[in-house]
């Protein structure tokens, strides 16, 4: 594939050079010393403008045909469908406008290329035309704005209706931690000033807060399908951004404040793995990876699709590898998983300074 692309590029370059030499020849014929475009320059470049229009259309079609499959699969959250629909509408509008305006621009460039003695039309103003192309964007944009704002207000309305699951996403250089409210579904109070690595209190929970004692702290995010999740984001050091592309969800994690985002997962990981687009993607990816394995390269073990949480705000050296797996499962599976997790009260060390919690987190990992 890579070789095909490189060959295509080289072919394009060859065509470009060929055209260039043609330009050279054409200009040599006249043997003019002036550096001002003459009729033959206008002709050559007029044709090239037309060719460029075709190039723009070609690269658009090529990109959609070749790269369309890279786009994210269908949304796995409730609001995601509305998001995808608005995106589609916006794209349709964009492509209509793009196709027409590029056509006019380059076609005019080709059609009205200069010739000696030709008279241009003195055409300085036309209020009606100006009005038309002011009012059309106004109407189109008004529609998009209203639709966009309606969707936005719904997405960003984080409320407690419908018994949402409360989950904290905790960011630090360069990993994620998730905290569940536990039995009471209420997060205990926390602040970085209460972090005590020796006591395995890495998220700075208030040990005296009864809400905190049943909190569950994990390194893999499990969500029950169909239940609304209210995320509370925190960061202990620099800005991070919790990016969950499959759910069309993103929110920055800001030291000193708690940010929030809410969505309802609609497809379990298992269901998503059966999605035809995802099956294709996994197949493609594993072909690449088996090729790597054959060459003895890294990153070659077979891949199975999983939802993922990425960091999407530059946060330092290992920004490119700050991730957490997300598993969406049925309510029963979720409960079974949750039952196996230890609560904060069980993991925090109150008397003996015995490391019951993985101490490579927190402070140690900040020195990566």
């Amino acid at each position, binding site marked *: 594939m890579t070789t095909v692309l490189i060959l295509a590029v080289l072919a394009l370059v060859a065509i470009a050079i060929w055209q260039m030499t043609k330009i050279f020849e054409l200009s040599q014929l006249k043997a003019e010393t002036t550096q001002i475009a003459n009729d033959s*320059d206008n002709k050559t470049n007029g044709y090239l403008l037309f060719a460029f229009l075709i190039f723009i259309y070609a690269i658009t079609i090529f*990109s959609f045909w070749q790269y369309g499959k890279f*786009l994210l699969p269908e949304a796995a959250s409730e609001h995601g469908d509305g998001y995808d629909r608005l995106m589609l509408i916006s794209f349709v509008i964009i492509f209509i406008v793009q196709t027409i305006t*590029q056509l006019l621009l380059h076609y*005019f460039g080709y059609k*009205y290329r200069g010739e000696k003695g030709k008279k241009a039309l003195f055409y300085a103003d036309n209020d009606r035309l100006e009005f038309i192309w002011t009012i059309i964007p106004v109407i189109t*944009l008004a529609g998009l704005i209203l639709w966009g704002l309606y969707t936005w207000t719904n997405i960003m309305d984080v409320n407690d209706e419908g018994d949402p699951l409360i989950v904290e996403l905790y960011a630090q250089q360069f990993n994620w931690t998730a905290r569940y409210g536990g039995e009471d579904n209420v997060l205990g109070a926390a602040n970085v000033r209460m972090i005590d690595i020796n006591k395995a209190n890495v998220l700075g929970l208030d040990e005296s807060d009864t809400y905190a004692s049943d909190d569950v702290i994990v390194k893999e995010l499990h969500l029950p399908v169909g239940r609304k999740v209210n995320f509370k984001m925190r960061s202990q*050091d620099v800005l991070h951004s919790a990016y969950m592309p499959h759910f069309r969800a993103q929110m920055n994690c800001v030291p000193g404040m708690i940010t929030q985002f809410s969505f309802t997962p609609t497809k379990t990981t298992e269901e998503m793995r059966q999605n035809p687009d995802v099956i294709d993607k996994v197949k493609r990816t594993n072909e690449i990876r088996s090729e790597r394995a054959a060459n003895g390269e890294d990153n070659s073990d077979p891949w199975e699709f999983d939802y993922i949480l990425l960091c999407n705000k530059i946060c330092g*050296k290992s920004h490119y590898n700050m991730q957490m797996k997300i598993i969406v499962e049925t309510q029963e599976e979720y409960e079974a998983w949750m039952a196996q997790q230890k609560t904060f009260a069980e993991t925090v060390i109150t008397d003996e300074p015995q490391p019951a919690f993985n101490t490579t987190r927190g402070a140690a990992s900040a020195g990566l």
Partner: protein
Amino acid sequence: MSVTAHAHVDDHAHDDHGHHHHKETFVTKYIFSQDHKMIAKQYLITGLIMGFVGIAMSLLFRMQLAWPGEANVMFETLLGKWAPDGVMDADIYLALVTIHGTIMVFFVLTAGLSGTFSNLLIPLQIGARDMASGFLNMVSYWLFFTSSFIMILSLFVEAGPAAAGWTIYPPLSALPMAQSGSGMGMTLWLVSMAIFIASSLLGSLNYIVTVINLRTKGMSMTRLPLTIWAFFVTAVIGVISFPVLLSAALLLIMDRSFGTSFFLSDIFIQGEVLHYQGGSPVLYEHLFWFLGHPEVYIVLLPALGITSEVMSTNARKPIFGYRAMVASILAIAFLSTIVWGHHMFISGMNPFLGSVFTFTTLLIAIPSAVKAFNYITTLWKGNLQLNPAMLFSIGLVSTFITGGLTGIILGDSTLDINVHDTYFVVAHFHLVMGISALYGLFAGVYHWFPKMFEGKMMNKNLGYIHFWITAVCAYGVFFPMHFVGMAGVPRRYYENTAFPMFDDLTDVQVLMTVFALIAGLAQLVFLYNFISSIFYGKKGPKNPWKSNTLEWTAEVKHIHGNWDGPIPEVHRWAYDYSKVDENGEYIIPGQDFVPQTVPLQKDEEELQH
């Protein structure tokens, strides 16, 4: 028509010019010059040098993205200890991205573009002998030079240059323990930018005062060429917004060095809690983008101004909708100062604010659309002289539309959620402001090269090669990049190998990098053409593009004061190309343009522009 005048001037002002009027030494003529034409050239050459540094950096990190973790002799040679065994280090990757952005946005497209052409064209096109204050103008350039020097110097700091992204969001940029680049490198970055802002403010104030006060007789505001309108409004935006960036930089310096907590709160890093309490990084984001967004238009408006002028001249037609163009510039300028929040939809600020900024942001598409349609109509039924400058102007409109349209997605707070900070954004802003503004810069250089270098002209064939390779490669790099972004790839990732879901994008990365490398090589054609034309360029006629504006009536030989005789008087707007009387004859027989200095002919109507 002006060949005789040309020769006359040459005779008159041969090499004894300096001795006549006032003593000029090498230092006062070439280094500490107060002449706007020399200062323009200084801006241009400094900007171009910075541009080549910035582009070279982008090629380095594009190679890393295409062939992640692979050793490369270029890395070993250019990065030294930052590329052990020729493999690029993750810290220096971020530093390259950061400095590339900083250099291209501020040093090339702000100073190199607006600085060059505002200086060159404002006095010449409004009919003034020089800027309002030649001295401040000189200070402005040398502050710019100093800040460029410090920025380059910061590349050689032991712990590496600033690496927190060109937006340098705290706390990452504030805490040396968060990132090696946030030590000395960041200090130098901030010092350099503070000086840059001072330079920009001095320059802008000078431009504003000059445009308001020094217009020649008859040059009313509604007769100004659109270039001047663009430079003037750009300067106004700069004066309004740059001081806010200075305040952000100063507060950040305080947080870094004096223990204040403007932007920092509740931080636990490297095993200890820091004392900072009560500040907010979101405040910094507001301050930064209060400049950051108008900055986009500070970069773009001069390019659009240049395009208006070049396009009209080469189409042999008046610019379509002069008043609408001026109104659009003003509307864009006003709106540009109230849309900054669209960079912060998911920063944690109140979602209601997001709604307001969505509204204002999508409004700005309206004047932008008007401009694009007006450019297209200007070409309609023209007699297009496809000089390199004209091609770059058409190219600008093309990338401005392509890049601008995706702004509809990013400006919509809802749609921004999933493409924010992905390569979709990178593709968008590179097309709409990066490539477009660079095309504007190139159009300006090709068009006004004879004005800068005393009648010498650049080679057109090399110009054509430069344009066509650049145009194809620019789309080749940034069109596929939209798809990478919509696949969910975040920007500023050193490599994408940590996520199997990005494995199948490697081919696209290679394709984009190959296009980028070819585009980089094409710039060497420009460099060669530029330098060789300075020394060996063929002299053209005094008014090579048959243009109406005043700068082509000024002496070809650079003299202090621009016009040997009295300053010309202006009788009409700048766009009387191919104007005909009621019999269908040109106003001046046999000539399809009417310079601004030509009085209205008998029975000729001055249209209500």
